[in-house]
């Protein structure tokens, strides 16, 4: 441990001209464990992960406004209205809470039968960033973890 008190600069390059001699003296970086009582960790929770209540209040329009009136096929795709085997969209946006429960329990959406719920849930799970309802869906995903 004979180099702990080395006073020569350890860098090959030039030191800043205003560097205090004492600051340049230490070989290893100094670390203070008890930093004057200040908290060293500041946590930023994304809006998505905020209070459970606000997350569950969100809605997911099915389909999104850009495809209003479209039907939802069994695989979740938006298809032309009246397509055989596809389902008419729900009369109102799905509630985040209902979607979360259905996805968690493998159940159905309130007011809809199994096949229709499945088609709607597939639509939701295919949502992309930037599509209406995506943020709500992402919040649900986060809560499921």
């Amino acid at each position, binding site marked *: 441990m004979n180099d702990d008190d080395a006073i020569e600069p350890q860098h090959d390059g030039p030191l800043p001209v205003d560097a205090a001699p004492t600051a340049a003296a230490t070989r290893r970086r100094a*670390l203070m464990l*008890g930093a004057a009582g200040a908290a*060293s960790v*500041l*946590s930023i929770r994304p809006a998505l*992960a905020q209070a459970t209540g606000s997350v569950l209040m969100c809605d997911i329009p099915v389909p999104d406004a850009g495809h209003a009136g479209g039907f939802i096929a069994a695989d979740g795709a938006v298809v032309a209205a009246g397509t055989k085997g596809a389902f008419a969209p729900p009369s109102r946006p799905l509630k985040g809470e209902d979607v979360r429960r259905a996805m968690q329990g493998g159940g159905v959406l309130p007011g809809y039968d199994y096949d229709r719920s499945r088609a709607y849930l597939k639509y939701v799970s295919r949502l992309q960033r930037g599509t209406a309802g995506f943020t709500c869906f992402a919040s649900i995903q*986060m809560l499921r973890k």
Partner: protein
Amino acid sequence: MAATRYQAPPGSLLVRALDDLTAVYHRPSGATHLLASPAPEILAALDGVAMTADALMLVLAVRYDLADADPVALAARLDELVAAGLIVAA
């Protein structure tokens, strides 16, 4: 009784230096944390490696010039990181 060991689970953190602060994205929770020294240094030592507070103190003493090798201060910093969910105690 075995002493508590601390660890940041492997692969759970995405770390970026931001001048004097360090931003840490915690994948499991999706939360971002801003850390000031000595938290990033402690986290780096515990990234994927479980160790007791005593062992951590030794590691930090080897890596850094500790101005205050105070076990109480280190315990307080560890508590902060556990509370933030960045490390786990077992």
